[in-house]
């Protein structure tokens, strides 16, 4: 199946070391799960870029197809899909997110 959003997604996750697809934006998340991932990244002082799937139906469908993942938010680090809200939360709590960021040489606080 063709995915018209794929070129955009590939460009964004390549250009932005930490890229979050979410509902709303970092200042005004429009979903509790998106808000939680934003809060974790802010808390870790990780610079990140976001894209709002609610503004673009093609992106909203396309990002699910791209990662074979049915829900938003979706976090990408250095082009690689890390997970949704549950996985990011688990990795934060266990310290694995910190390790991943260090391994991928993402500067954070």
């Amino acid at each position, binding site marked *: 199946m063709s995915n018209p959003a794929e070129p955009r997604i590939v460009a964004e996750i390549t250009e932005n070391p930490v890229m979050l697809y979410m509902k709303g934006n970092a200042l005004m998340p429009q979903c509790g*799960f998106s808000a939680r991932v934003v809060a974790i990244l802010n808390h870790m002082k990780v610079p990140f870029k976001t894209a709002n799937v609610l503004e673009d139906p093609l992106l909203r469908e396309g990002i*699910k197809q791209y990662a*074979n*993942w*049915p*829900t938003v938010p979706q976090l990408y680090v250095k082009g690689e*899909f*890390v*997970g*949704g*809200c*549950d*996985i990011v939360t*688990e*990795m934060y709590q266990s310290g694995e997110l910190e390790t991943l960021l260090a391994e991928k040489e993402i500067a954070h606080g």
Partner: protein
Amino acid sequence: MAMIASDIEALIRDAFPDAKIAIEDLAGDGDHWSASVESAAFAGRSRVQQHQMVYAALKGRVGGELHALALQTSAPK
């Protein structure tokens, strides 16, 4: 139509016959669920792969009919 816990459990059970499954209705509204699934099928798989396996078992319902499913997966220790 919201799903009920036994529907969710049955779909997961079909795909992971050995699994220990716990389903919880988080908000009491039949719309926000949490599921923890422990199965030997997850051994050696990444978290993303484990969750993808559960989503596949739920046959496209997650994100649609099943609005919110907080998921925790693990292999038996």
